[in-house]
């Protein structure tokens, strides 16, 4: 199962849990199952079928941006992080 690290402000939805384990072969599947398990959480990560503008997903340390189709391994670690720019 993939481990999803829940951003601090969204932990109300997970009863305070900083990490949850969810089955899923892709980022999209994990987000859908997150929403099923913790109603409202998926909606804060995804909008109109895409990761919300301004958010990026990190899978096993790789910044995969807003690519919901990114494949996950059974032991994958998934973070959702505000996207960064730069100067």
């Amino acid at each position, binding site marked *: 199962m993939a481990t999803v690290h829940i*951003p601090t402000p969204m932990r109300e939805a997970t009863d305070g849990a900083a990490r949850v384990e969810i089955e899923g072969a892709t980022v999209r599947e994990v987000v859908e199952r997150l929403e099923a398990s913790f109603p409202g959480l998926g909606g804060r990560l995804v909008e109109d079928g895409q990761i919300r503008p*301004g958010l990026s997903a990190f899978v096993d340390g790789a910044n995969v941006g807003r690519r919901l189709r990114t494949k996950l391994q059974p032991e994958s670690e998934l973070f959702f992080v*505000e996207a960064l720019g730069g*100067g």
Partner: protein
Amino acid sequence: MAVDTRVGQTIKHHDEEYKVIGTRPIRHDGLEKVTGEARYGSDINLPGQLHGKVLRSPHAHARIVSIDTSGAEALDGVRAVITSAAFPDPGDKLTGGGEAPGLPLKFKSANMLARGKVHYHGHAIAAVAAANPHVAAEALKLIDVEYEVLDPVLEVWDAMKPDAPVIIEDLYTAKADGTTAEEASNVAAEMLYEVGDVDAGFAEADLVVDREFTFGVVHQGYIETHNATAHWLKDGHLHVWCSSQGAFTIRQELADLLDHPITKIHVVPMEIGGGFGGKTTAYLEPLAALLSRQTGHPVKMAMDRADVLKATGPTPGGYVRVKLGVTNDGMITAGYANLAFDAGGYPGSVVGAGCRCVFAPYNMPNAKVEGFDVVVNKPKTHAYRAPGATHAEFASETVVDEICRTLDIDPVEFRLKNSAKEGDWQLAMPPYPRIGHIECMEAARDSAQWQTPLETAPGKKRGRGIASGFWFNIGFTSSVTAKLNSDGSVTLLEGSTDIGGTRTSIAMQFAETLGISVEDVDPIVADTDSVGQTDVTGGSRVTFATGLAAHNAANDMKDQIVEGLADLWDVAADSITHADGTFSANGNSATVGEAAGLLEEEGVFPIGKNTVTPTREGGAFAVHIADVEVDDETGKVEVLRYTAVQDAGVAIYPPYVEGQMQGGVVQGVGWALNEEYVYDDDGHLLNASLLDYRMPTALDVPNIETIIVEVPNPGHPYGVRGVGEVPIVPPPAAMANAIHDATGVRMSHLPMSPARVQAALAAEA
């Protein structure tokens, strides 16, 4: 053992040897830059061209009651006058690609030309196109604007008060918990990041230091002012020539703001005279485009220095509080930080990045960071080299220094003991990959400056300070198209605006991969119709990401050459080897140049191409040492000696890396000691010129000694890390720590100008 760093040094933590990478060839654009042949935006002059000018608000906060443009329109030579009404209604659309996607487009549109209200002194109100710049300037005086002047709010701590004037009446705080505030305020967004148990961490501490810091607004200070020329053809094609850090970003913004098909917008990147984050968004381009559409002529516009300082995107002022807990033996147990940055007249400051950088150099299992994005009556702020990190790490590195003094622990040893390393905690992010903070700190410890006692002088207050800095670096998307010419040379098209000499560092990676000399590669910064999607030159990404695209394009070309030679030599493609630029198989061999000639006879012209969005940027650390002398009568701080150490991953072109390090230090010294927007109580900017906005010159800084540390980034085939931003992060903290060492006074505001230092010394006395 101390080493002499009077010349640039490189300390390698790898065994890779390269033929091209790490060498110091003559830069491809050098001759045209030094002879004046290079073409900048202001060199564009088109037949029938008109000239545009912008009317700007004399008030910081006012409602626009009416705008009467009839006087200007009647002036002989005036061809068009536009106000915000010329822009399509942005509705509820969000901004597209670029650096800050997902913000309401209405704010960006209103920043182009004020819509109903002015939000800062210098806010654009109207634009004129005329036969020449003088007529356009005269026409501005004939535009009659009636204002209802409102009370301005200039600082975040005032803007966050419940009774503060609300600048945007329908701005409701996006709260950290995902809800939206019910009452409008100037706080656009709240952020919260937490790891571990911060209360338990502070309970374990033997010493807690809790300090507050404030910051003035600073500008990137690029020398070339903004300019744009637009030609809107009758068939709807829009051509734009401009000074920008990203032609594709400008194209996207034009498409969004003008509601025009992206396929009809063609942006030509000109050479750029500096950007540092301030040229990652449009200002004049949409105005020139609309004026061109209205007149049917090309329209050229350029800002003067006052326009640039008043109405582009300086980086925020604001507030940072840092609280750190440590044990008596110098182990950090917990950290708390609170950051409030001014977004300027519209939402979207760089506070989120600041929040995530504030404790980045340290392995800190318990931390909580809160951030606030606050609208004030100042220009819409923007990125400046490592945006947000300099503020944040000025605060945290000053507190670290105070802890070291209090506990009598060597500041290098403290940092080594608590340093972040591979696998350690990273706030709200995956654990660190391979990083080089420890290696940088060790190089600083061993540097000639750190190993040489500070020279004392009778009656002089001298001190030494050290500070770390971190910046993430970013990936984004880059493209390269490379054409093999029949003589074996390569024409390489890339889409990244060349700010820091990147066309050569990209060409070097291509040459290394294909096994040719870099002199045989001709790199060209191409327009938006001529190369694949390439995001903005920012986030220290170009040598990393566009370099990766060049590496991949070279491999693509190599594969095509192999395929062609396999046909020619009648061998299996996988039997052909490639080493040192020579292809060999079955007794046949050909260099790249020979292969190009052979393939030409067969009608084969390989074109290597690649578009890549890399995913493992690899963060960058820097450690700086500053020696200063403080004049206790005037408060003036002189930099006596300075060493900059930085992890570059692998330095593709060491002189450029050294140049970035030195340039970052100079800008950081300016930020530390002098640079600041000065406003009166009514919100008027009082120092909108380079005489009064004091940037350092060569006379203000010593030779800056550089040590490049190479801890390769595992996310790049040549180990590249971005280098352009992190060197601006440590200087203010290093300087503040040096000032304390010299005087015993802690400075808590940037800039540490002579008046402020003098006042602090007087207060201490």
